[in-house]
């Protein structure tokens, strides 16, 4: 090594002298932001080393935390997976219970709103195996005083009627079944007709003359003439209407969600629902409201109600959910 240096001494000296002068220059020259070139070089020289050091430390640390420190991760992962599955299941149960509570609150509201009408809450437990038949089964039967041709409703509107009764269950024919027929009339014009099913999801209102002026959303209520449903229960609204021969072809959008029924109410009699006191007061102050066939200039409000149209021009609003929940905590669900 020393021999090599002495052999190339002049060259080494040249390199040393040139390097010394380069450093001398670097001390004098200033780059951007008045930074000396020597400092610039020092930073440029040191930064990659520092970066390499940081990279090395982070990767070594990553190896430690990513491999060595993960010895118990597999067990933890399995435990957490199980915990997540349990919590998911529990969450679904709670959601289901919450939804059921909501439905029961609605039923209770309806019952509280009409204490004079005997009714029975029931759960839907099955549907028809025939895709062309719109029927379903409920968990109430002969033992619960359920009889044929009793009306089945929800707080939203008419569902159908009891067609078969078994000891502990009953079969309900929905209003959109092809064999179904409900006496109906328009809430505003009081024009009569029959709501019949055609096998489609939406039933039709028949026997309405072409001259009858209809609007989208016109409410259709029970007429009570079929001796199954009390008068003025909401069936649905006009979805579409076109002239036909000899009667109009009117599609009805059912007020009750026939495809998502879970809890229903069986009407144990055809007793009409009495209007509430507040409605009675308003009805007496408005003499035209009690007259059948009376029309108003304003179209009816959307049928978001307890399903009973005691006033043709006014739908009864549903109670607030908070009030309903407070009431739900007091009495039991009617006859369940």
């Amino acid at each position, binding site marked *: 090594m020393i021999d090599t240096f002495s052999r190339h001494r002049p060259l080494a*000296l040249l390199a040393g*002298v040139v390097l010394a*002068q*380069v450093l001398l220059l670097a001390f*004098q*020259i200033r780059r951007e932001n008045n930074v000396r*070139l020597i400092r610039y070089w020092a930073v440029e020289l040191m930064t990659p080393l520092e970066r390499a050091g940081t990279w090395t430390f982070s990767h070594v640390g990553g190896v430690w935390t990513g491999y060595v420190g993960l010895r118990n991760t597999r067990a933890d992962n399995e435990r957490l997976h199980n915990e997540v599955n349990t919590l998911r299941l529990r969450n679904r149960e709670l959601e289901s219970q919450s939804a059921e509570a909501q439905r029961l609150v609605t039923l209770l509201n309806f019952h509280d709103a009409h204490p004079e009408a005997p009714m029975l809450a029931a759960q839907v437990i099955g549907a028809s195996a025939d895709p062309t038949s719109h029927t379903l089964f409920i968990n109430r039967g002969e033992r619960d005083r359920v009889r044929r041709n009793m009306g089945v409703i929800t707080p939203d509107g008419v569902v159908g009627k009891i067609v078969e009764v078994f000891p502990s269950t009953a079969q309900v024919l929905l209003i959109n079944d092809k064999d179904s027929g409900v006496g109906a009339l328009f809430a505003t014009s009081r024009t009569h007709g029959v709501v019949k099913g055609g096998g489609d999801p939406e039933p039709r209102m028949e026997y309405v003359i072409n001259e009858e002026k209809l609007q989208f959303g016109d409410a259709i209520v029970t007429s009570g003439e079929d001796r199954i449903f009390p008068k003025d229960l909401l069936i649905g609204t006009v979805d579409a209407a076109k002239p036909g021969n000899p009667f109009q072809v009117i599609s009805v959008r059912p007020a009750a969600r026939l495809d998502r029924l879970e809890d229903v109410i069986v009407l144990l009699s055809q007793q009409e629902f009495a209007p509430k006191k507040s409605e009675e007061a308003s009805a007496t102050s408005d003499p035209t409201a009690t007259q059948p066939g009376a029309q108003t200039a304003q179209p009816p409000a959307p049928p978001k109600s307890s399903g009973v149209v005691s006033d043709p021009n006014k739908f009864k609003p549903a109670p607030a959910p908070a009030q309903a929940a407070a009431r739900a905590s007091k009495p039991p669900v009617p006859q369940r």
Partner: protein
Amino acid sequence: MAYMANLGAHSEPNIEVHKFYSGTIIGTALLSLVFQAFLHKYGRWSELIDLPLLVTIYFGVSRRNPVSGLFLGGAIGILQDALSHDNPIGMYGIAKTIVGYLASSVGGRIDTEHPLSRFGLIFLFFHFHQAILAVTQRVLLNHSAPLFTVRLLIDSLVTAAFGVILFALLDRLRRSS
């Protein structure tokens, strides 16, 4: 070669090393710097000739000692930088250090006594010196210094021509062996 003779005092055989009277090298180097600065006052024509470079080359090829050549070149270059008003110290220093080293190395290998070889040597060293300056300025100062222009060509030719005359004059300062 007639001028090549083994003086016995040098480590390499068959290489003639010229010696000068004491103070000659330092005095000549200082004089070249003074003249360069003095002539610069009287017009830009003096920029055609780089006297310190000629002195560096001359004493490099005459002494034929790379170590003394690089130190002499470095000292002349740093002094030249110091006398200039805007050059950072080291610009000419680096260039002349390398030129001094190479001139000393080349001096022992080729004929440096003939006027034509001197002309060619000065011409080449001038451009080499300019190249080092340009690279240094580009790398360190971020200046776009030219590597070759017609003006530099003219400068190199004038300097080489003047150098042949100057070298002949400086030969008279050699100590007779």
